[in-house]
């Protein structure tokens, strides 16, 4: 038990030092990187680690007789969480969202503190002590609070009322509801039934299982399977179409969506929101191939209102590409990211 708790304490201290170092720029802020596409999981994992670390730390401090009172533990953890979501998460999230997380965290802390009567009493005690002001120090504290609270409230409300020019928050639906069918180059495609004509096995039949076995491997780098090189001179069928799709992607799409399909292309920095990151499990991995076909063909202009047409510079690709070219690009995007298109069943 003791060894386990010491380990926890060690993790906690190292984590805190790392975090503080990164926030104050003592060590490079990229020391522990946010892994692309896995940020929420990583955040949860990191906070979990810190909780374990704090538990260990608290145990160790108690063991050497320097335990921190419940009251300060609660407040300390809450403050830690607020600072964590403010400084750790990148890109930064707006204050209103942080306020929501902060409130949830506060409720969680209060629940933890009031989980049994004794703990709750221990938590309340310092507050009541100051209110009752039995000792000289508490008396002094009480006067400090009496004076400081109104002044602080005045300061905060003054600050809040000063006219400010912060960018208004505009939340937008990332994957708006698609139409039942879409008409591209004079032909109507029903999204439920249309199939990518290039997702085929060597017999020329539509075959997800076969094509999925040839896509890029998941894991760092997302490299192609050693025996499935689209650039092999003898590549035929699916792999040849992947290469052709890649050629089209790199002649048209990489300017925004990037060489690694992660939305960091040459022009990406100028746009808001920045272009979609296909390596993120929340984009094409979540969607049917026909949905992508509709989005590619109609672009930002074809978005319904909740998707904010004006916030997208995505071209209606039907202006630039043929239907075949669009299907091939989609084939390539799934190949390169190593994701399976979602199916209807």
């Amino acid at each position, binding site marked *: 038990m003791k060894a386990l708790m010491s380990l926890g304490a060690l993790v906690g201290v190292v984590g805190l030092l790392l975090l503080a170092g990164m926030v104050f720029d003592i060590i490079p802020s990229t020391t522990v990187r946010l892994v692309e596409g896995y940020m929420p999981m990583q955040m949860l994992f990191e906070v979990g680690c810190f909780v374990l670390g704090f538990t260990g730390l608290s145990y160790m401090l108690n063991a050497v007789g320097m335990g921190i009172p419940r009251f300060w533990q609660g407040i300390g953890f809450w403050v830690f969480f607020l600072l964590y979501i403010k400084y750790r998460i990148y890109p930064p999230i707006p204050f209103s969202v942080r306020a929501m997380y902060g409130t949830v965290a506060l409720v969680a802390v209060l629940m933890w503190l009031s989980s049994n009567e004794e703990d709750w009493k221990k938590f309340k005690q310092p507050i009541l002590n100051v209110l009752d002001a039995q000792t000289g120090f508490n008396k002094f504290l009480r006067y400090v609070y009496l004076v400081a609270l109104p002044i602080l409230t005045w300061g905060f409300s003054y600050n809040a009322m000063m006219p400010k020019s912060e960018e208004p928050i505009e939340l937008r639906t990332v994957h708006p509801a698609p139409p039942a069918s879409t008409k591209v180059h004079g032909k109507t495609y029903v999204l439920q039934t249309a199939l990518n004509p290039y997702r085929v096995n060597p017999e020329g039949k539509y075959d997800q299982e076969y094509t999925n076995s040839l896509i890029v491997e998941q894991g760092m780098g997302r490299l192609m399977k050693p025996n499935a090189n689209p650039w092999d001179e003898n590549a035929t069928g699916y792999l040849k179409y992947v290469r052709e799709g890649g050629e089209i992607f790199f002649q048209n799409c990489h300017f925004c969506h990037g060489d690694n399909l992660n939305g960091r292309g040459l*022009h990406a920095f*100028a746009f808001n929101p920045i272009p979609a990151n296909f390596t993120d499990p929340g984009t094409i991995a979540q969607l049917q191939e026909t949905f992508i076909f509709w989005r590619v063909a109609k672009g930002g202009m074809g978005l319904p209102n909740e998707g904010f047409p004006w916030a997208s510079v*995505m071209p209606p690709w039907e202006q630039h590409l043929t239907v075949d070219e669009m299907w091939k690009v989609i084939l390539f995007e799934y190949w390169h990211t190593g994701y399976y298109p979602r199916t209807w069943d």
Partner: protein
Amino acid sequence: MQKRGTQVASLVVSATAGAILMTVSGTAMVFAQSGIPEGFKKGELAPPPSPEMIEAGKRVYFTKCVWCHGVDGAGDGPAADRLWPRPRNFNQGTFKIRLTASGELPLFDAKKPIPGQNDLFDTVTHGLPGSAMPPWEGILTEEQRLQVLAFVTTQLVKDRSFTDKQSETQTVLNLAELKPKPATEESIKRGAELVVEKKCIECHGVEGRGDGNAFNLKDDWGFSIQPANWHKCWNFRGSRQDPYNVANIFRTFSTGINGTPMPSFADSTTIDERWDIANFVNSLCERDAKGNPLSIDPLTDKPKIDFVIPSNPVEGEIPADIEHEAWKNTPRRYVAMGGQITHKPRNFVNRIDDIWVRSLYNEKSIAYLLEWDDRTKSVAEGKLPWAPTEVNIDIEEQPPVTGEEGSIAAKQNNYPVYNDAIAIETPVKWQELPAPIKPRYLFGTNEQFPVDIVKWEADGSIRAFKGTGWDKDFEERDSYEEYLKVLKSEWKNGRWYVLIERPLGNKKEQDYDEDTFFEVGKYIPTVFFAWDGHNGDAGRKMAVSAFYYTFMNPPIPQETYIYPVLIAFGVVFLEGWVLTRRANKKKGKTL
């Protein structure tokens, strides 16, 4: 040496550039005989990578790199013809960003991924900002990056060998042990003198905006190449994602950039002088109002963007002098510009990649001060073949596959010259749009959601248009033009300064149905367009920004002073109540 001589000779395209280059290659000859230049030390070629690594690297290459660099590494992948700079052709073994002496191969050791000791590894890790080469850190593992380089250096570099001790030497800049000189005023001042003395300004321009000799320079592959703009250090190829680090500039200045007209100054300057120059160049890079480096967005490696352009109120006339205090005190905003790649003709290479915007307003008008770097002042000769209102004009889009000769990189020098221009677009009746709706960023949506466009061109004209869709010709608002004023338009040393004043609108004499009404304290969606005439920009071939907001800072309302005081008193009462309650409760208990 012989080889470099011929390379250099092929570069001599203009008299001035040629003169500098000859001097430098002349001095290079001297150092070959006399030993190692100051700050360098002898290095060893690294041992060759293992065959397993090369094989593994091939897999990385054909997943990630082949798309730009091509099957044979000749820089002719599918993406190449629409890119400028073109992807690197590895075959010659010419690599730009190095710690090794001019003309030498870069440092590469497949077993030593140590930053600052492995040039090619650093390049793959951090990418080459300002080009299409992204940073691969976080995408490829360290191992994978070394593997792919093992493949590139052994299989795709064909004219030279990274292991041939007979033909290759390594003379390495000892950057780790050279301590940067503090960027004192004195050092910067000396640097400023040295860039004149060493003729840096002949290419990089008097203010260092890369506008000297901008279109007469060619690289080893025959493509047009532009001198770096010292004011945008985040676009330095060798910035290693650390653009304000003076050591990067020191390195580039010491070793030169192979394959380009940028020579090494290792033999013609002392270390001390090189630090002075590096400090000066670094001091030119854009900084915030307090003189601190701009914060760089780690996702894009460009300055962080604030989408709100605040406009400060002024009493009386808006000053036309941009040095006026009012202009100095109003915050400026970095507006990022991307190529218009939504509709034909798409602009794959936009030479204008940012604009600095400031704004002031008085009771009648709002003024925008737009400053942007453009290496060339472009004014079309003669009359343009289309009317100012025409949108669907006949400009060719770069075809996807052309081969080197027809590529976008080869065309950079040969575009017909049109007018440099800038435009500000705001929605008409933005107040009446239902909440999430704005007109489309590109020339508005339709008659229902039109936009108000004010466009200035380098021929001195200022025009007002109404836009009703990306493919609809503009409608001219003739009657409005008399209200528009160009308070200043000047091109100086690679930078345009344009100051446009327009009415706030919503006055009786102006038509509210056609013009944007600029209301104080409201977020007015604003888009910027820019055209570089020497890039053949006209019509939809242009650079575009995202939607920004013009926000006219209101005078501080009285409530701001009153309410907080009231709230503070409320808190005092609350405190009294809590204390009394607690005291009563306790009394009750003890009683």
